């Protein structure tokens, strides 16, 4: 029987006493790519922080299993070492900490780093810059993708890899991400779904007000969202709730 690489069971999370995720259930199997849609503030990034175990994101019920092991109580670094790699949407700038020094910690293989730099089309001088300090939107995305690929994780999470990126860079990033996804499992958060032009996702979920309200075929769901907005999801949710009540 196939085991999911990531399994989230009835997960509810609070930040500063405020509930931000409700009874989330999600199973990602080996080799599957899942997409998470949702309006601003619906809890998409919070779900990632909860998967990573950031201390502000307090699990009030449920659990997170990774490779069959309950990781709900583990510190972030231990979860990551088990094979989770995250490309953040808005990573913090850290003065004096060079991107290169972080990358070299993730992989001591200089050849691999140079190869990744070529793939994301960025010069090696980029490695000497303070991480995320004064980076443009495109540079942040490239830096995040570089780090995640250097980590060589089994499970990849990309938080809005397509936001704030111009067409040219989007093509570069989309191609690199798609290549990285071959044979791997992933969760990709996207607001407008532009990245889906470059990658093949298996299943999509819609997160509204901290709950997964809908799951289905990625292009079909994206099409509905682009046509009718998230109002369609609310309507769909009501219909399904009514059906259940009936």
């Amino acid at each position, binding site marked *: 029987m196939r085991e999911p690489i990531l399994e989230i069971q009835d997960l509810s999370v609070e930040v500063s006493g405020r509930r931000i995720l409700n009874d989330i259930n999600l199973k990602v199997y080996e080799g599957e790519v899942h997409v998470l849609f949702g309006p601003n503030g619906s809890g998409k990034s919070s779900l990632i922080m909860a998967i990573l175990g950031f201390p502000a994101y307090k699990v009030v019920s449920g659990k997170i299993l990774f490779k069959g092991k309950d990781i709900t109580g583990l510190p972030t670094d231990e979860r*990551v*070492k088990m094979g989770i790699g995250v490309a953040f949407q808005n*990573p913090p700038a850290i003065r*004096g900490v060079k991107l290169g020094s972080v990358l070299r*910690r993730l992989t001591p293989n200089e050849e691999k780093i140079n190869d990744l730099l070529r793939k994301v089309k960025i010069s090696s001088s980029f490695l000497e810059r303070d991480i995320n300090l004064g980076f443009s939107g495109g540079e942040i995305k490239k830096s995040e993708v570089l780090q995640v690929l250097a980590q060589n994780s089994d499970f990849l999470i990309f938080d809005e890899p397509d936001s704030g990126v111009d067409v040219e860079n989007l093509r570069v990033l989309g191609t690199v991400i798609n290549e990285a996804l071959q044979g791997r499992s992933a969760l990709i958060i996207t607001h407008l779904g532009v990245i889906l032009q470059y990658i093949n996702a298996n299943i999509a979920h819609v997160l509204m007000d901290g709950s997964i309200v809908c799951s289905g075929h990625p292009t079909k769901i994206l099409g509905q969202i682009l046509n009718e907005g998230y109002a369609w999801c609310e309507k769909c949710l009501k219909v399904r709730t009514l059906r259940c009540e009936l």
Partner: protein
Amino acid sequence: MSEGKDAALRAISKPSPFGPDLDISQYSRQPRNWEPCPISSLPEDILRRALEVGVTPEDRERAGTFFQIDHSVIYRAIQRLFEDKIEIMSAKEALEKYDWLKDYWWRIVRVDTDKYTALAELAFDQGYFIRILEDQKITLPLQACLFISTDNLNQNVHNIIVAEPGSEAQIITGCTLHHTVHRGLHVGITEFYIKHDAKITFTMIHNWARDFDARPRSGAIIDDNGVFISNFICFKPLRSLQMYPTAYCRGVDARARFNTIIYGLGNSYIDVGSKIVLQNEGCRGEIISRAIAADRAQIYARGFLEGAHSGTRAHLECRGLILSEEAAIYAVPELVAKTQGAELSHEAAVGKIAEEQVQYLMARGFSKGEAESLIIRGFMDVSIFGLPKDLEREIQRMIDITAERAL
């Protein structure tokens, strides 16, 4: 009695406006006597301490060397290649040799500034004289070590650095002590004369002990198109350190820059500032300071920019990192514009390590301790100081050695 001695006597009880007021009578004036010898023949423990403050026994790595232990000058040498380009000698020797030197003595730092300058005049214990001859570009750094080997000793040095027109040099001064020394007072007067088109990069590293006091008093005059860069590094705990060096950009297009990195540990009371006075057209100044306060350390990071002439510009950047609930950092930036054409600016930020930065690095697999250590090291990054690459590497190496232990 000379005018200087007279002024010193009047100021001998005058406290400094900053830092704890020290009872200067509590320190010993009885040094151990050291005979001149090559640095390489010094005991291993002295060499090790000297190396930590950038002073190497390898003559070939330095254009020239001055080494003083307690009140004795034990070594001074110039590498053959640079013999006709620089002069290095003890301050007493230089005063005897050059009559004109009296015109450079107490001309930038006033002898009656406070009790410490007065003490340096009344109980003068050597120090060095370094002169870079006209148009000479010195490709290797010069080094000076002011070492204390006697517990509770008072060491008062007076240094003069003259960069003749068109000359260029890097000078590393390491101030440190023997591991058996716990208490004491170091007073260091340093006067820099940067003549037109000359450039001096001066790096001073202090490594003292938990009950030690240091009161450096420095000043620089920079003439037309001259450049003065001063780097100060202090990473070891000490009882108190107070200094407020001043650079006077006197000539047209003169430039001054102060870079400071302080790591306050234990009960250290550290009050370090930098002043730049822009006195002529086109003068530029920059002060960059990084202060880290751990344990119960109290750090005052001061900065003072004075625009006294139009067409001048200066910036002050002060950042502080607090690693303990009991530590404190006081950032005190001051800007004084005395004319409309002076552009002065500052930015200051003090706080603890940002949690989101730690979490971000943990999400890359670093442990919490590793993430914090990386952030602290990054905070002390010297690449922003705009130094020559060799010197930058050397300072980074010293930071790594001391940070390793501090962290």
